């Protein structure tokens, strides 16, 4: 049986090592856990304890003028597989990537993609208007837009002078 030969792209003298990338993410998270973060983005497995195992999708958080933007890299899911919940100032993203049905005649050659549950919690830095939260899922990226609560927006306070 002929084998497909693999070639890692080797350019600019640097061979990309995806396992090293995962390791770096894990080390970054160890630092986050040790030193804390005013913006707490925590990994949690189903048992609620801190865990670095399993699927750890990358989460980015941005602040716009009037809202918070949370983006999570979750390729290959259907929106029914993702659940988003807000509880007490914490936004939780969770779900599961199911293993595809085994094909009768298939032999898995090479498997690098994660399968299984994921669970990430973002502790929000300001109050948000829960009624107006929107989420979209495109190109495998989940984007949650959380508008700031009215009292969280910066306000000009008028000064009265007698």
């Amino acid at each position, binding site marked *: 049986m*002929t*084998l*497909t*030969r*693999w*070639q*890692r*792209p080797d*350019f*600019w003298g*640097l061979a*990309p090592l*995806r396992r090293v*990338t995962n390791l770096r*993410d894990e080390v*970054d998270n160890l630092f986050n856990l040790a030193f804390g*973060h005013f*913006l707490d*983005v925590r990994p949690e497995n189903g048992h609620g304890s801190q865990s670095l195992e399993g699927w750890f999708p*990358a*989460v*980015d*958080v*941005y*602040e*716009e003028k009037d809202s*918070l*933007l949370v*983006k999570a*890299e*979750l*390729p*290959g*899911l*259907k929106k029914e597989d993702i659940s988003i919940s807000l509880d007490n100032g914490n936004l939780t993203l969770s779900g599961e990537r199911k293993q595809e049905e085994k*094909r009768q*005649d*298939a*032999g*898995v*050659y*090479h*498997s*690098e*993609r*994660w399968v299984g549950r994921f669970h990430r919690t*973002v502790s929000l*830095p300001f109050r948000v208007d829960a009624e107006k939260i929107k989420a979209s*899922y*495109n*190109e*495998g*990226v989940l984007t949650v837009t959380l508008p700031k609560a009215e009292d969280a927006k910066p306000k000009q306070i008028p000064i009265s002078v007698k």
Partner: protein
Amino acid sequence: MNTVTQNEGKPVSSQPANPERSLVSPNVNIIETTDGYILEAEMPGVAREGLEVSLEDNVLTIVGRRQPDPSAKLLHRESNPVDYRRVFELDPAIETGKINAQMEQGILTLTLPKTEKIKPRRIAVN
């Protein structure tokens, strides 16, 4: 230096749209069936327009360019601002004219059928 060249000096990949972005190898699953191979590459953030799949001789190159980051203030970053690239040398049994590509939610699925004559066949006996 923006182009990557192979032995004969022919460029394999065009220059990156965003020169500051480095290229990493996307995670890939490969399944082999009696009909051919199925390759799934994970490239979140890449839209159909950012995807380039090219074939030269027996070499398949996949390049995925991610959408630009939001222009808002960054509070916390875990994703890498990279683009994706991976090169494969194909099994000669693959019928390159029939390769099919689908892109859905950041997953590129390539179906690479094997040529008919390689599949096991029953031969009728008179």
